[in-house]
């Protein structure tokens, strides 16, 4: 009934990197940052070139046949038993939690369950598998963190982002009201119910501003394009980026080293 306790694997020599379609098209720098952080930890990163999308947009819209077709095309991408790391709680949740449901009673049932068990959200993997130690090389700053609902509730990693930011000595994590409340993205929800979604993101932005931050980081690009896009539209001085981009830049980028 409760999700099984996560048993983290030993740090592997190689991982599969599943980039997600939003990162591919809109935020490739976040994907590159994730890959470089892994490489800096001494891990060889394999990027299966045939990856497209995990299938979640169709799945949550009710088009399960279409979701299954797309998801099935991802199942063959991870033939070795290396972990599959995903820079998103949402796509990670789809693969880990929903693939077994989606492929139940199909010939892919066992494969889907096996793959689901190897899926890790990338920040969780850096903190709890790589035991990363971050050396902050940036100027003092205050950031707010928005953990996506899927990272928080499906992947159960609400503490991971703050823990990583906590390693950065010059970064102050802004305390916001209702950190656990949804930003209103919800995929097609933002399109189907624009008024409600708009009210939610507007209040989320207000809580981030009230927390005293001018920039925020997040685990998921859906939340990022929602909150940052709303801030830009509203003319509010608040910028956002994926937490991986932020961590990579703060720790010196290419010049940074493992401490």
């Amino acid at each position: 009934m409760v999700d099984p306790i996560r048993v983290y694997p030993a740090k592997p020599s190689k991982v599969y990197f599943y980039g997600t379609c939003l990162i591919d098209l809109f935020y490739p720098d976040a994907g590159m940052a994730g890959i470089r952080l892994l490489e800096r930890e001494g891990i060889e990163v394999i990027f299966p070139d045939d990856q497209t999308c995990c299938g979640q947009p169709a799945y949550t819209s009710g088009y399960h046949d279409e979701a299954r077709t797309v998801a099935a095309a991802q199942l063959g991408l991870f033939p070795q038993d290396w972990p599959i790391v995903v820079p998103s709680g949402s796509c990670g949740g789809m693969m880990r939690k929903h693939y077994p449901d989606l492929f139940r009673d199909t010939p892919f049932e066992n494969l889907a369950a096996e793959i689901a068990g190897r899926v890790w959200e990338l920040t969780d993997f850096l903190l709890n598998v790589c035991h990363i130690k971050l050396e902050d090389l940036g100027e003092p700053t205050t950031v707010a963190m928005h953990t996506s609902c899927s990272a928080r509730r499906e992947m159960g990693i609400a503490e991971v982002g703050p823990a990583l930011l906590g390693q950065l000595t010059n970064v102050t994590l802004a305390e916001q009201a209702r950190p656990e409340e949804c930003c209103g993205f919800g995929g097609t929800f933002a399109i189907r119910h624009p008024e409600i979604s708009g009210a939610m993101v507007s209040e989320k932005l207000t809580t981030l501003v009230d927390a005293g931050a001018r920039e925020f980081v997040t685990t998921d690009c859906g939340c990022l394009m929602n909150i940052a896009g709303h801030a830009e539209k509203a003319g509010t001085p608040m910028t956002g980026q994926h937490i991986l981009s932020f961590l990579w830049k703060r720790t010196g980028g290419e010049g940074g080293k493992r401490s």
Partner: protein
Amino acid sequence: MSSSETVSQPAAGVHAGHQVDVRDFHNRARAAIHNPKIRQNFRKAMDGLMAKRTAAFEGWDLEALRDLGANIRLRALANLPDLLEQLEQKLTANGIRVHWAVDGDEACQIVRDICVARGAKRVIKGKSMVSEEMELNHYLEARGIEALESDLGEYIVQLADETPSHIIMPAIHKNTAEISELMHEKTGTDLSNDVEYLTASARQQLREKFMNADVGVSGVNFAVAETGTLCLVENEGNGRMTTTVPPCHIAVTGIEKVVPRLEDVTALLALLTRSATGQHITTYFNMISGPRKEDELDGPEEVHLVLVDNGRSSIYQDDQLLDTLRCIRCGACMNHCPVYTRVGGHTYGTTYPGPIGKILMPHLIGLDEGRHLPTASSLCGACGEVCPVRIPIPDLLVRLRQESVDGDKLHPARVPGHGAKRGRAEAMIWKGWSWMHSRPGAYRFGTGLAARFHKLQPGQLGAWTRFRTAPKLAPKTLHEQLKERNR
């Protein structure tokens, strides 16, 4: 939010007994979003309820307790037919008459027949969501029988000729000033912002009604099969008055409310009151085990239980949808729902609002009329996280979305009205999406093309850009960047 979008019409669908078009969700949502009073009343109330719940579970192993609650409900549902038979036997032995109703109309008819047989003209009611589902008040009133709500929130809602906006706190959409104005207008109570005064005034008026009532109608929180006991949770004492003062008590409940053993009630009660209002226990907890016995001085002469199906046995047929019936009606899912908090209960236009309403109502009214209910969620999961009996509400919402569009050939849809939302254009879009994303070459070609021409991307993206700028296509996809890097 742009102020030009202010909508002047009041939120439709709040008036009791009027036919509400559930499909008009969007208009009601828009009106609610732009109504500062609704926004403030709900935000304030829900923030308070969330904090109270958190405090009430402090020091408890909440996850273990939720496991226990879920298991009790699962076990009860697994044996539902047998438990209902056992319940009927025990109740009958205790002197409680049991009636079965296929739907709300039949349940109303049973209540009316009992009233007619007793020559009853005045009914006093304790809070019961099933009676809302039945629309009992209007049924009785149309047939010359007065039905008066005695729960303070329900009383207010009835004065205003509205429906409840929350299953536990029916008048939560109103603040004290609004309630005072309403009571002043309808009952002559002096205008006041003193809650105690307003409550005392309502109490005085209701006390007289209790004394003159011919029949009391109540709901049931748990019906215990092994002992034939009807448990009723309440805070105002009106439930005890309703079930003991009038000479006849009629309890109405859904068939899913049965639990096997008396000891099952302890865990469920601990979860219910803490999840609902953040109380360790309510002021009153009634255990009704029969009519007045010969040597007893008070209590009703007759006690009836009406067991209402109203779509539940159909839900029961499906292994996944069955989880809907675990619900113990605490309302925590709505208290924690960011959508409910923004739009309030009346926007849904259904008896049960919020997350539980979104997964329950489609079975009662069909997915045709209820087509917008499963989509009105960001699937944030807050509801499932607080549900005391671990109903996987987000998963059920996704299931109902699938049913709405007949989206899964492996698992054919079965909810009434399924497929109503399937549109040719949308289905074609997903087909095209699926075609491209299951062909890596086509995907790389398409995304590469988009990146190459990123400067030509449109700045306006329909509903998305009403509140946000469009996300910007990168000049090079991650696929392309990695290919170059590895060259």
